[in-house]
């Protein structure tokens, strides 16, 4: 029978945390000047904790309010994405890629489709390339809106106001995407050599309306947040990611750019039509929570710029390759390919090994959040537990991508 007072057997992560405490006390570090042993507690944060933004579990060792050690436990959302690829053709696998990192699903699709195209030597049509950039950048804005919205809610001086404002704007992007693809989040829109549908009538005008409306909203949010004394106090100088951390742990995306590194795959390893577009790589210098927030806000502006240019330059023509009208059976030659794509959270890489059959032999994701999360023990230790929540919010994790 279920006994509510029964203490469950601690799992490996908790055992590890307890072992580490024992080791540190055995070395004599555990007692203060008066010879009193200090009082460390192991607290289990998550997997159902509102501030972890998903099913992330942190086994935190606390000394009072101070975080001594963090052991992240992941895998609660593992859906065997890499295993599923073994029994699905390249084409059948596209909708599954959507479900890895669900906040920027179209960018993940893009990464996967580009890798298969590289393997098979397919070049997408020019109009399709522009549509890909437009949709990809729209989803970047949508993803940053969720990231900043939920993060400001964690910090609480503004309550949940920002979440609702930002979700309201994100809704407009999702409406645009729904009109284009038929789905709101799981698009299944990219195809090898192009995209599924051409832009519907009037879509470009609607998109332009959004581009006109949105800059004023960004300004409004900045007015709400950037001058908020409580927000600034909680953000500035906290959770600093140094450039050495970026090098050691492979941090990418806005988190790396906030530390003063101009690392953007759209520039440093350009793909699609990005070399033709004029945009800036947003960089901040301090690497703290506030800078990571600033980079995301600036990037939304740059994305708007990119979309506007693409709408102006949008060429006429087919959105799918004529020779690949029905690319259901695609058999890339044996070999391997890796393509890194600038996802809103960093480098989203897809590595595919082909044995010449209809199924990928091995598919592996390099997820940006997986790599960023690895820094957590180092980043959170030594902070107050409330700051730890703020820091983890500013890193912007999506557990669907981490657990795959």
């Amino acid at each position, binding site marked *: 029978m279920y006994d509510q007072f029964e203490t469950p057997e601690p799992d490996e992560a908790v055992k590890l945390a307890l072992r580490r405490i024992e080791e540190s006390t055995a070395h004599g570090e555990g007692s203060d000047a008066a010879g009193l042993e200090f009082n460390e507690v192991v607290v289990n944060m998550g997997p159902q904790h509102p501030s972890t933004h998903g099913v992330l579990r942190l086994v935190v060792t606390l000394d009072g309010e101070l975080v001594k050690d963090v052991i992240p436990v992941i895998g609660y959302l593992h859906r065997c994405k890499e295993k599923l690829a073994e029994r699905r053709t390249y084409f059948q696998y596209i909708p599954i890629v959507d479900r890895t990192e669900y906040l920027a699903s179209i960018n993940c699709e893009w990464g996967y489709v580009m890798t298969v195209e590289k393997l098979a030597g397919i070049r997408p049509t020019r109009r399709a390339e522009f549509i890909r950039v437009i949709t990809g950048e729209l989803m970047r804005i949508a993803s940053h809106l969720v990231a900043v919205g939920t993060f400001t809610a964690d910090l609480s001086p503004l309550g949940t106001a920002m979440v609702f404002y930002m979700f309201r704007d994100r809704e407009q992007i999702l409406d645009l995407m729904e009109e284009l693809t038929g789905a709101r989040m799981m698009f299944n829109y990219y195809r090898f050599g192009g995209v599924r549908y051409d832009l519907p009538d009037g879509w470009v005008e609607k998109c332009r309306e959004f581009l006109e409306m949105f800059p004023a909203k960004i300004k409004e949010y900045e007015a709400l947040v950037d001058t908020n004394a409580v927000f600034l106090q909680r953000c500035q100088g906290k959770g600093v990611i140094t450039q050495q951390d970026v090098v050691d742990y492979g941090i990418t995306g806005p988190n790396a750019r906030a530390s003063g*590194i101009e690392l953007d795959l759209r520039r440093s*390893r350009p793909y699609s039509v990005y070399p033709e577009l004029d945009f800036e790589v947003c960089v901040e210098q301090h690497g703290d929570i506030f800078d990571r927030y600033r980079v995301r806000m600036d990037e939304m502006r740059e994305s708007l710029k990119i979309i506007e240019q693409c709408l102006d330059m949008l060429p006429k023509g087919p959105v799918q390759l004529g020779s690949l009208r029905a690319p259901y059976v695609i058999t890339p030659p044996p070999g391997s390919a890796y393509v890194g794509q600038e996802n809103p959270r960093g480098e989203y890489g897809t590595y595919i090994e082909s044995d010449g059959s209809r199924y990928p032999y*091995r598919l592996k994701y390099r997820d940006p959040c997986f790599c960023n999360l690895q820094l957590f023990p180092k980043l959170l230790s030594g902070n107050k537990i409330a700051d730890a929540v703020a820091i983890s919010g500013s890193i912007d994790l999506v557990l669907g991508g981490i657990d795959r």
Partner: protein
Amino acid sequence: MGLVVGSNPMSMDALAALLVERFAGDLDDVRIQEPDTIVARCAREKLKDVAARLKADPEVGYETLNFVAGVDHGTSFESIYHVYSWKTNTWVELHVELPRAEPEVDTVCDIWPAADWHERESWDMVGIKYLGHPDLRRILLKDDFIGHPLRKDYVDLAENHPHV
């Protein structure tokens, strides 16, 4: 520190020639994968030495580990290391072949700290053992899971999931 991407740009041919020269006898089958990756093989006994030298090279310096992937090739396993050079803005893909009977290789955790979780994932999914890894636990699957699902001979049985 002032980290700049691509401070020492080199053509891929020059880079491949440089690696062939510096790692003569250690790196085999060095070839260029367009546009910016060099693929090479390395014997597993030499991996640690090659990794340390790749990272420390003053001119190219592959300082960041991108990911580690384990692949089951039927008769053998393969551990793939994808590393990035900030100076030249290029990647090296290092393939290390491991015999099926003994899928073990030295860890590169102490050289590239990022390898920690990636090696755990490779152990979890493909069952490649990274010798000297500080904490080689399962990462995505449950602690009590039995087997390594990304092996091609893995059969999914109810007994493999004792926690369900």
